[in-house]
């Protein structure tokens, strides 16, 4: 028995941290904040060079063939520095969904290009209702002979402005249940498709609305079997939970470190504020939440290899817990910083904002607690 990272994972964590410290510093985050794209193609290229884009892609398709715990290790580091990168949207979510849902030939055609970083993909799932259950997927794909025609819109699509292809969930049959949901791969430039940025307070991550105005899709653009995509979306939801939980873990660790460092340096009333018991206990309470949550994250990541009920339950546990821990930690970290933590000039607010956005992304803590209850058979 050994509940720990293996040597390769330890190495991955260390090298990623060193790489990102150099390549994705807070000054890059700050520079890209007001950038219309918000991404750095240089950084993306270097990330591809590391092979990370193919981390979850099987070796047979040109990837590293690693698992969710490895991805979680990397996402922890990306979350720590808020690195602007399509790793989550393309290399984790879209890649996983393609792996789950795609036919053998579709995988052969897409995965090597995703693994090399040649193309980026993203998943378009949520709609106006912002619901993750089957009723949230309404967009209709009507069959017209050998083609499908899509009209409607998708919301909260990650990195849609730089993704080359969208994996779009749409209904090929009437109803609001899990049956009848299909998946389509649609290129960014498809006629009838338009993008609108969703301006949010967390500009380290860009979300979009995609409008479909009678977008025509060929039959071979359908990923996997018709009407059978729901279970793959559910499995991708688990992957998303673990991925975001990992980001939260890294972000929370970093925010607390910043606060502790500040508390050791800043003086008030003739002593460092870190010597006040109120500040010490605030920091200790954060640490007592963050430290054990890493074990929960690892367990949830590893459980994804099993594709059973426990995988979903553990993923929802990690998402619910880490989302709240990150939000609480950054709130306390701002408070420990005092007024300076409230300024634009100080970096602290980047983490504060990401934490709150992450809490909502792919399901609120309450949503995931209810999912835990259901999966526990209560």
């Amino acid at each position: 028995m050994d509940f720990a990272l293996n040597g390769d994972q330890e190495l991955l964590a260390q090298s990623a941290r060193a790489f990102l410290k150099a390549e994705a510093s807070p000054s890059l985050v700050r520079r890209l904040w007001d950038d219309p794209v918000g991404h750095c193609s240089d950084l993306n290229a270097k990330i591809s060079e590391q092979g990370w884009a193919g981390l979850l892609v099987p070796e047979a398709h040109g990837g590293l063939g690693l698992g969710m715990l490895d991805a979680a290790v990397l996402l922890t580091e990306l979350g720590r520095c808020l690195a602007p990168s399509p790793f989550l949207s393309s290399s984790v979510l879209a890649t996983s969904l393609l792996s789950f849902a795609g036919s053998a030939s579709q995988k052969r055609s897409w995965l090597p290009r995703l693994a090399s970083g040649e193309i980026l993909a993203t998943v378009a799932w949520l709609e106006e209702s912002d619901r993750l259950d089957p009723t949230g997927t309404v967009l209709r794909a009507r069959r017209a002979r050998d083609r499908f025609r899509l009209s409607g819109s998708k919301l909260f699509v990650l990195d849609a402005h730089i993704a080359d292809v969208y994996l779009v969930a749409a209904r090929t049959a009437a109803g609001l249940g899990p049956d009848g949901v299909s998946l389509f791969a649609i290129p960014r430039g498809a006629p009838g498709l338009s993008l609108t940025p969703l301006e949010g307070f967390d500009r380290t991550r860009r979300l979009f609305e995609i409008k479909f105005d009678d977008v025509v899709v060929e039959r071979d653009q359908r990923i996997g079997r018709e009407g059978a995509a729901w279970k793959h979306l559910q499995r991708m939801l688990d992957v998303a939970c673990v991925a975001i939980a990992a980001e939260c873990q890294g972000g929370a660790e970093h925010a607390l470190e910043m606060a502790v460092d500040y508390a050791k340096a800043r003086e008030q009333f003739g002593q460092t504020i870190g010597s006040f018991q109120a500040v010490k206990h605030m920091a200790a309470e954060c640490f007592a939440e963050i430290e054990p949550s890493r074990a929960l994250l690892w367990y949830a990541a590893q459980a994804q290899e099993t594709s059973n009920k426990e995988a979903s339950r553990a993923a929802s546990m990690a998402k619910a817990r880490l989302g709240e821990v990150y939000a609480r930690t950054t709130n306390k970290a701002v408070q420990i910083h005092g007024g300076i933590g409230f300024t634009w000039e100080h970096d602290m607010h980047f983490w504060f904002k990401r934490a709150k956005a992450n809490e909502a992304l792919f399901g609120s803590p309450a949503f995931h607690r209810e999912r835990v209850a259901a999966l526990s058979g209560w």
Partner: protein
Amino acid sequence: MLPAIPAGVDLAFSKEDEKFRRSLRTWLRKHLPKRHDEIDGGEDLNFEGPAQIAAAKKWQRTMHDAGYVAIDWPKEHGGKAASAVRQTILAEEIVTHRAPGLIGQLGLHMLGPTLIRCGTAAQRKRFLPKILTAEEIWCQGYSEPGSGSDLASLRTKAESDGDDFVVNGQKIWTTTAHFADWMFCLVRTHADAPKHKGISYILIDMKTPGIEVRPLVQMTGQSGFNEVFFTDVRVPRSNLVGELHGGWAVANTTLAHERNMLANPMRTQQLMADLVRLAARRNDNGGKVSRDALVRQRLADLQIRVDMMKYHSWKQLSDEIHGRPASVGGAISKLVTTELNHEICATALDLLGDYGPLVGRSPHAEDRGLWPRDWMFTLGMVIGGGTSQIQKNIIAERVLGLPRGA
């Protein structure tokens, strides 16, 4: 049918006070500007450009002409010597009608009362009239980078040189400094005296050479606060308020007001009403969000505390009106209200899910992006005006009588 709340606990206002409220309401409905946001700098007094400043000054003048500005001031200084009840009625109606805040509020609430109590006749004559009319806008120079919670450790120094002080140093969190005409300012005039004892309270013309104002952008992306740098700024000795080295006492006469501004129970009620409206408006799977059992619990818990703080403020107001010793100071209101405001906004974000982070310029944003902005701004208010930790120290030491910390 019995009256809503009968005597005993007497919540009725006098006929005259009710009349005051009615005529105020009538006046407000008639004079309120069409679009408040074009005239209102918000709680952080962050006016966008000269046109908005001019409009805001005009609004204060309109209010003043109607007799609704500085009603707490004595009549001889241009006020109405209004009772605490009338002040409360005015504050309530202002908030209820969402009237713009007054651009000159730091002069009206902080400097004015200070000059009336501690200023010379000449100072009053020179400064008070233009505070009322918004001809001169004041900013407050207390906080410094090295002295946040520990105000008494401030280091901006004013050295005597002939008939002048020469001021060097830096202030921070200075609301309205970017367009203020004057600053009331705490400076160190005696380097060797114990911390509280070497501080003086002086008035600085913001046009004096050697002053540099740099906007301090908040995490909301808005400015409103500033940093102010002083390099050999000459201030005539006649601009000293109160005794030399006696500025700490002068400032303390109005410090409590700052806490009260941050703990306005009307503002909290308004925020809560907005949240309830949001929950009733949003739909979740075909039903109103406000029908969800979890949401109802959170809303009820918040509403209970919001109402509780309203009644608590009535209790404090009653003690003030009737000249009873205050049972507790403003520390509880500051602590509870600012944290409650932030929690209300955080709840709104939670109800909004992925829509929560969308800011004002997004077409999908609810309430024009008010919630994410206020979610940030209210955390700032938890920190500003003495952090929650400082308020807890005050409660523990001054109210509960526990020993002062190391």
